[in-house]
């Protein structure tokens, strides 16, 4: 049974030897710890992800960071440079391709060759394992700001080894958040172990005086996820990381669309993560937050996409998110061109800068929403701890089995998939079906009443059709999905 216990050093080293054999680039001498530590110590402060986040939080700034990654390293470097210079990105990513995420390095190798031949990227990201530490170093050296790996990899151990040795000072992911939304039938025990390894690695570097940032993937499926659910996962992953020695953690949240709910979510994300980390004995972890611009389906029209991007930026800035992952006007179509990516960045940048001196005022509605989130998070955390007999790692596995933790629209079979979200009349994400979530009647009644009101307003039943309408809504220019009375289903 997996447990929330720091991996013993010898065990870690033994595993490490094994993992370095997964692909030839694992054998590079640059992966030897002495070399890697040296390399990381020489990363200048302004290229250290963890330090830049600390500074931003202190100054009340919301930093911008795009998604970006292409198959060929020359193009990848050029792309990142462009996004920093023309796009004014404060932080850079390297989005990893989907073959690498599934550890299919041979497929990635093929695709690199094909991309070279066809002179266009046949991959949806940068195959960092195939390019190895040397490639990663080049990417960092030729770009002006800190770099983070962003992916969706259930088993990112080799990838993590490579990127950190290359001097990349942040890694996204987690045993839950990179499993449930990104896999079909990988066991949670396995992915938690894999990510304990990645965190232990960062913990080791921390012991050497090197601050590396870790970021659980906040938005999960990006599809109508209620804030309390993503918060609970983020807090558990923060605790799991802290146990392995991670000292700098960014917890994340994807825009829901109702501003009051979004601000309540951002404020509680910060306060609750800090609260529970301390409660469970992790005293010296520096917590920052990341806001993801709308993660669901985007409208096709590029100006409308920029409208949503800018609105998201306003929310991030008012909610004092430390950073924000930006979208692009090409979102609904495909991986963006560098120009489209920079457009999203620039629109985001000016909005966050214009609003940097402003905050969202406290109000009755805001405090009510925060209370609800707090209660729900508390209920899920304690139920998880309970079924784990006091251990969060064991608890997560059991909680997912029982549906105590449940993520809407997840592809994973490990996930119960019994809850169903829908928006209330003001666009807040509420629950239609609670599955086995450990919520008391007060909470459930709150959700039910909210949805009932919407039903009354729209003069229709509260049902899965609302959920479907809500999934389409933003891409069609609304937040609360409208039923289309013209669309009647006929049987063939």
């Amino acid at each position, binding site marked *: 049974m997996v447990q929330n216990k720091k991996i013993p050093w010898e065990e870690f080293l033994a595993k490490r030897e094994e993992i370095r054999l997964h692909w030839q680039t694992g054998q590079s001498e640059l992966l030897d710890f002495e070399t890697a530590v040296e390399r990381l110590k020489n990363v200048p402060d302004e290229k250290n992800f963890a330090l830049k986040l600390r500074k931003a939080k202190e100054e009340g700034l919301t930093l911008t960071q795009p998604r970006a990654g292409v198959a060929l390293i020359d193009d990848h470097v050029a792309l990142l440079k462009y996004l920093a210079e023309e796009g004014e990105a404060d932080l850079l990513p390297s989005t990893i391709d989907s073959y690498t995420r599934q550890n299919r390095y041979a497929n990635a190798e093929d695709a690199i060759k094909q991309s070279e031949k066809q002179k266009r990227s046949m991959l949806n990201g940068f195959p960092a394992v195939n390019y190895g530490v040397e490639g990663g170093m080049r990417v960092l050296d030729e770009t002006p700001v800190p770099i983070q790996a962003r992916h969706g990899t259930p088993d990112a151990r080799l990838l993590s080894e490579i990127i950190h040795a290359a001097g990349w000072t942040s890694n996204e992911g987690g045993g839950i958040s990179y499993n449930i939304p990104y896999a079909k039938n990988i066991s949670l025990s396995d992915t938690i172990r894999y990510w304990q390894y990645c965190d232990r690695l960062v913990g080791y570097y921390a012991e050497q005086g090197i601050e590396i940032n870790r970021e659980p993937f906040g938005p999960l499926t990006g599809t109508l996820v209620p804030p309390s659910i993503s918060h609970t996962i983020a807090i558990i992953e923060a605790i799991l990381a802290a146990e392995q020695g991670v000292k700098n953690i960014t917890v994340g949240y994807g825009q829901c669309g109702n501003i009051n709910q979004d601000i309540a979510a951002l404020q509680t994300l910060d306060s609750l993560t800090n609260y529970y980390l301390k409660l469970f004995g992790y005293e010296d972890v520096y917590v920052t937050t990341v806001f993801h611009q709308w993660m669901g389906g985007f409208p096709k029209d590029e100006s409308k996409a920029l409208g949503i991007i800018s609105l998201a930026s306003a929310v991030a800035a008012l909610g004092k998110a430390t950073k924000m992952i930006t979208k692009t006007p090409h979102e609904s179509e*495909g991986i963006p061109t560098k120009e489209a990516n920079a457009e999203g960045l620039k629109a985001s940048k000016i909005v966050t800068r214009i609003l940097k001196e402003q905050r969202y005022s406290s109000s009755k509605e805001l405090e009510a929403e925060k209370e609800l989130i707090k209660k729900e998070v508390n209920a899920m955390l304690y139920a998880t701890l309970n079924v784990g007999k006091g251990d969060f790692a064991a608890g997560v596995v059991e909680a997912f089995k029982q549906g105590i933790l449940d993520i809407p629209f997840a592809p994973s079979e490990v996930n119960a998939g019994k809850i169903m979200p829908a928006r209330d009349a003001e666009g807040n994400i509420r629950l239609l079906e609670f599955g086995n979530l450990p919520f008391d009647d007060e909470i459930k009644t709150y959700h039910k009443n909210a949805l009932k009101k919407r039903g009354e307003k729209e003069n229709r039943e509260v049902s899965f059709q609302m959920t479907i309408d809500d999934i389409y809504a933003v891409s069609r220019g609304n937040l609360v999905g409208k039923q289309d009375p013209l669309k009647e289903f006929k049987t063939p």
Partner: protein
Amino acid sequence: MHTVVIGVIGADVHAVGIRIIEHVLRKHGFNVVNIGVLSSQEDFINAAIETNAKAILVSSLYGHGEMDCKYMKENCEEAGLSHVKLYVGGNIVVGKQDFKDVEQRFKKMGFDRVYPPGTDIEEAVEHIKEDLNTA
């Protein structure tokens, strides 16, 4: 009642669209076999053989669709499924490309119908009905 196999091909985990496709096809009276995300060509073909399906709807969102769908038509034929209609949709290539080009590439690969990003599934339903009833 026609049987159709639907799923998301390759290393792709986008699970939302396929769920709605399933829902809509069911409402239209189809017998839907949803093999879910992360499905290989073999998964599609086996499901189609087992259920005697008349059509396969391949969904691909993540950008690797072009590589994942290579030789799918040939593999279908080899498995004795030459009569099965092949549809593909989603965000089937990397990036915002001219859709006419993309459509041609996939038609050459043997797909009967190719759909651009964000296609309303109702539209495809009309085509499927048309194709299967005249077939």
